[in-house]
């Protein structure tokens, strides 16, 4: 493998045009350019329908761009790659599998022995605080716990980059805040690169090193806002409020 030590991700002039049911062309992504450093926590922020999911799916290798290319470690992404793991908004766990068998799924697919993959799955379930639920089924867990399992499952296949598509979007405000805090701790411990999609300004500013603000469809990168504030960030602090207001203004200006 070339460029092994530097797992940076780059998105070069990526666009995506869909054809809808009426046969009309819909340009979801206009011209997206983005460089993500190894170990960075990036949030992609934009209004609903601007193409965030589409962008993430292209990075995950689930969709091809209409033009341009996404690269990881200098190689073009043409399909799902082991360096990348995706965490969906919801409904991604397998309801017929126990929590540990869900967590170990990625390793099972690679043909790792049961003993070995269970050991690793337990390690990551412990990391997300769900060790004692390994024998439970997803329907026995709350929404927040299920997303923790989804995180453990993604980490268990040992990717370099975590792709998260509004993973906390379906959770209540309080659970959501807890999950954000926990995610930052996990990020610090595991040193993964995180690309986190959200439409919540608050969430983006709370989590990320840099906030990538997308314009509405056909979307382009409007601005990349670096958040300097030390973590853990205090939402009530002046600094936080300022960054938040600035990012909000970026979104609103474009909608006028």
């Amino acid at each position, binding site marked *: 493998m070339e460029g092994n030590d530097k797992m940076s991700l780059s998105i070069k002039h990526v666009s995506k045009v869909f054809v809808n049911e009426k046969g009309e062309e819909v340009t979801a992504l206009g011209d997206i350019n983005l460089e993500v450093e190894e170990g960075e926590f990036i949030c992609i922020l934009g209004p609903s329908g601007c193409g965030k999911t589409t962008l993430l799916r292209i990075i995950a290798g*689930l969709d091809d761009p209409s033009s341009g290319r996404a690269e990881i470690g200098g190689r073009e992404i043409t399909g799902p790659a082991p360096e990348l793991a995706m965490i969906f908004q919801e409904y*991604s766990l397998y*309801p*017929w599998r126990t929590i540990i068998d869900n967590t170990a*799924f990625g390793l099972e*697919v690679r043909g790792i022995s049961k003993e070995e993959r269970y050991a690793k799955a337990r390690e990551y379930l412990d990391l997300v605080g769900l060790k004692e639920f390994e024998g439970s089924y997803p*329907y026995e867990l709350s929404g927040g716990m299920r997303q923790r399992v989804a995180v453990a499952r993604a980490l268990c296949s040992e990717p370099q980059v975590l792709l998260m598509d509004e993973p906390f979007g379906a959770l209540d405000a309080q659970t959501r805040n807890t999950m954000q805090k926990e995610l930052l701790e996990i990020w610090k411990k595991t040193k993964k690169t995180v690309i986190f999609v959200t439409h919540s300004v608050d969430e983006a500013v709370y989590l990320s090193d840099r906030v990538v603000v997308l314009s509405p469809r056909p979307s382009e990168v409007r601005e990349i806002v670096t958040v300097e504030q030390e973590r853990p960030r205090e939402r009530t602090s002046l600094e936080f409020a300022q960054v938040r207001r600035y990012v909000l203004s970026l979104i609103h200006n474009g909608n006028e």
Partner: protein
Amino acid sequence: MEGTDTAKNRTRKQRDNVWRRRALGAILPILIIICWEIAAILIDNEFILPRLESVLAVLAAPTVDILGSGSLINNALLSIERVIMGFGLAALVGIPVGLVMGYWQRVEDFIDTTVQLFRPIPPLAWIPLALAWFKTGIVSMTFIIFIGSVFPVLLNTVDGVKSVNKTWVESARTFGASQRQVLAKVIMPASLPTIWTGLRVGFGIAWMCVVAAEMLPGTTSGLGYLIMYAYNWGQVQVIIAGMIVIGLIGLLIDGLFRVIEHQRFRWRGMTR
């Protein structure tokens, strides 16, 4: 303590409720039996309506030969054997073909029209053709049962595969699962509850078909044959006893399907 007390009360109330509902359901069958018995006494003709006792007498001796055509149990086992042949074949064909049809749109486009053309023909309408091709016997019966049960199995399988959550498949793909792994580890288990429903429905139809097929001229065994034969000899108590056995076996196997469904597919409907 008060809290547990009310909780206990509540479960007791629920249990009482279940019993009350069962009791309510039992009233009508008991009434029917009473009416039957009264009617039998009034009519006083064994060849039209035998009394309950004579039917029970037949049921009480399931291993005793009836008019030289075998016992109830003997004939029931033969019917079950036949249904397993035809239904087994339907499952063996319906499930794989359904999986392939559900997974590849082109295969469905290719096959679906044909399925829709053949499906409305009732299985019993195939009987003359079956006799012309295979004569009376196990092959004809297997064929009829197969025709009757293959469509629900097939169509439920297709439906099951098509309604598999897209995110489940894509999750698997992001973990690098091959097509075959996606099929074996996601599509199959995810559609199994729907396939199971198809099997249950298919079995119900198969059981109807076997009894009907056994009434064909030239057949010499099976529950369907037994009740038809009893008719020729005017043994109405045997007809009714045979019908009861047919119903009970159908009920039992359907119950078995439901028990397994309840145990294995509890996650269905709790997907979140």
